[in-house]
């Protein structure tokens, strides 16, 4: 009897605890939303009757070329995603289904990148791109990340789980290497592609330090760098405008997540990332 009574109370406490944590987690964002949608005077005063306004967003939008930054970011992320898909698919297929001398050693060398990310090698990569005369281009931001060990690793794992009979059937039909890849492996690895794509997009959309270093002009800056340049003026920070700009630059990803929450989580599960 005691046990039966104990459980519900414990459960309720847990629910309350989880909710408190959730509230705590949302608090910063809620505060930012409050500040962005109300005039500057209400930034630090909570008056429920305060008037809503879009003026902060307008001011932020006009203060910096955010449209251009948005275009740059979309171009960057699209470029990275496309190139990564192609390159990692080819490499993963080679590692998964082809045998050649030195394969496992080479795979280990590739995996080294999981620990030694391009971000850490700022100084050298910067120099390389300068020598290639590619500095301050969107391609320059993307290049260090196009060969993605994580992508190769994930796709190889997925390809390994695809049943050999399917591959054999395609071979019997006379499909060449690339045709087998395209017809059999790629379609079956769709969940992995989605999961990897989501991770990659959110990572590169939000990437800051490397783009900060490698870009100088408005035509190449992504949103994150644009926001930083915008927000660190020596003038007094106008919190309403800064939070408005911050929300604006985060909005695309946020909205995408809100709309596709379930798919996000499900694709992670189906891809068997664990």
């Amino acid at each position, binding site marked *: 009897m005691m046990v039966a009574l104990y459980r519900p109370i414990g459960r309720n406490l847990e629910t309350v605890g989880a909710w408190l944590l959730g509230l705590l987690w949302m608090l910063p964002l809620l505060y930012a939303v409050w500040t962005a949608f109300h005039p500057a005077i209400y930034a630090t005063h909570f008056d429920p009757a305060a008037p809503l306004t879009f003026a902060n967003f307008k001011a932020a939008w006009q203060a910096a070329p955010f449209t251009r930054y948005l275009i740059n970011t979309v171009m960057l992320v699209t470029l990275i995603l496309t190139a990564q898909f192609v390159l990692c698919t080819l490499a993963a297929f080679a590692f998964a289904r082809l045998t050649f001398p030195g394969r496992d050693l080479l795979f280990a060398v590739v995996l080294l990148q999981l620990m030694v990310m391009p971000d850490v090698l700022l100084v050298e990569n910067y120099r390389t791109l300068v020598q290639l005369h590619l500095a301050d281009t969107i391609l320059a931001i993307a290049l260090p990340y196009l060969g993605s060990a994580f992508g190769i690793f994930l796709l190889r794992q997925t390809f390994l789980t695809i049943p050999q009979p399917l591959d054999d059937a395609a071979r019997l039909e006379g499909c060449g290497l690339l045709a087998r890849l395209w017809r059999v492996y790629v379609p079956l690895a769709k969940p992995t592609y989605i999961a990897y794509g989501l991770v990659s997009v959110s990572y590169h959309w939000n990437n800051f330090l490397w783009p900060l270093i490698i870009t*100088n002009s*408005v035509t190449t800056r992504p949103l994150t760098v644009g926001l930083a340049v915008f927000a660190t003026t020596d*003038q007094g920070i106008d919190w309403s405008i800064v939070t408005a700009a911050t929300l604006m630059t985060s909005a695309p990803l946020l909205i995408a997540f809100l709309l596709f929450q379930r798919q996000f989580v499900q694709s992670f599960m189906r891809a068997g990332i664990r």
Partner: protein
Amino acid sequence: MIHRRSLLAVSAAMLAAPAILRAQTVEKLTFYYPIAVGGPLQAIMDDYCKAFQQETGIAVEPVYAGDYSQTLIKALAAIRAGTGPQFAVLLAAEMHSLQDQDILVSLDEIGLDADGKKWLGSFYPAFMANSHADGKTWSVPFQRSTAIFYYNKAAFQEVGLDAEKFPTTWAALATTAEKLTKRDASGRVTRWGIKMAGDLGNAQWTFGALANQAEQKLMNEAGTEVYFNQPKTIDAMSFWQSLSAEHHATPDGVSNWPQLSPDFLEGNTAIIQHTTGNLTNVRDKAQFPFGVAGLAGKNSPHTVVGGGNMYFFKNASPAERQASLRFARWVSQPERAADWSMRTGYIATSPAAYETQTLKDFVTKFPAANVARTFLPVATGELSVHENQRVYKVLTDNIQACLNGSKPPARAMADAQGDADRILKPYKRT
């Protein structure tokens, strides 16, 4: 009688002239500049560049690159990458380090005729202080400022002080700030008396003013020696620390520059030491009567100049260098300098600008705009040495350690001197 041949020749020349001119002129220049103060500076700069293009046909693309340190990093990165700007507005105090990077071209080398030399002489001498080395001129003033106090007149009246008389000595300043500090019933401060910036990039400016107020120069003109360890410098640091430690008129620890102006406008502090370039921003946003006053001094007022000069880079072609110089001369014309000053609050860079009618009228209507320049005679240059950023960092680290209570002023300054000496050692030989 006009010969046909000469007519042909003349017409040919006239037709060819534009092409020849175009071949000799430059199509487009890029120029990096920082925004360090409030106001729609980007729009103003865009307008200037458009006007310049209409007058001269040279397109100048202004690239806003962040604050002073970001602009410096960006400009250097771009120049090293070969895609750099032809000229940029950078901290006047960076001259020695920029020279070390071997990227500057002096104005003398670009070419200064008699007119040009007169133009150089037309600037306020205090603003040219950071521009000379090896007998040549390396930069020209553009957005210059001095450090001044902004103070809340309503707060002054509230505590029974005369809002029109601002203290001019350290002792008076400390007492005033003490009086202005307001506490609630539980002892929590609701309004600070004074706030000064101690964060990286600004601590050395605040400190430069304080040192000058103790009548001590912080560096030599060649930028190879610093004088942090002098008794007067230690005096200045002690005074800064005493404002929090003894007088409790400013918060313990470090106050950040970006926070000063919002705090002042919020009523969180009654006095801030800030740049004159923030004047327009404060004027637009203040919800209370405010005043502008020169800095105080140990015995008499002294202050420090700051702000940005225009530098010209080696990687530009001769035609581009000429065009950049032309832009610099165009933008510093009295009328335009006056315009820039009125719209931002920076001090117009030449006395001639203050003789223009527009600025005269403006100053009559808004006397606060004139305060900063009256202190130019007692202003010293900003800390400027080789490896400038590195020396700024060691000085700032030690100032912060002192303000946070982990080092007494004497030791903080001794450590700063030691570190700086080590950094500057390779440069002392030259």
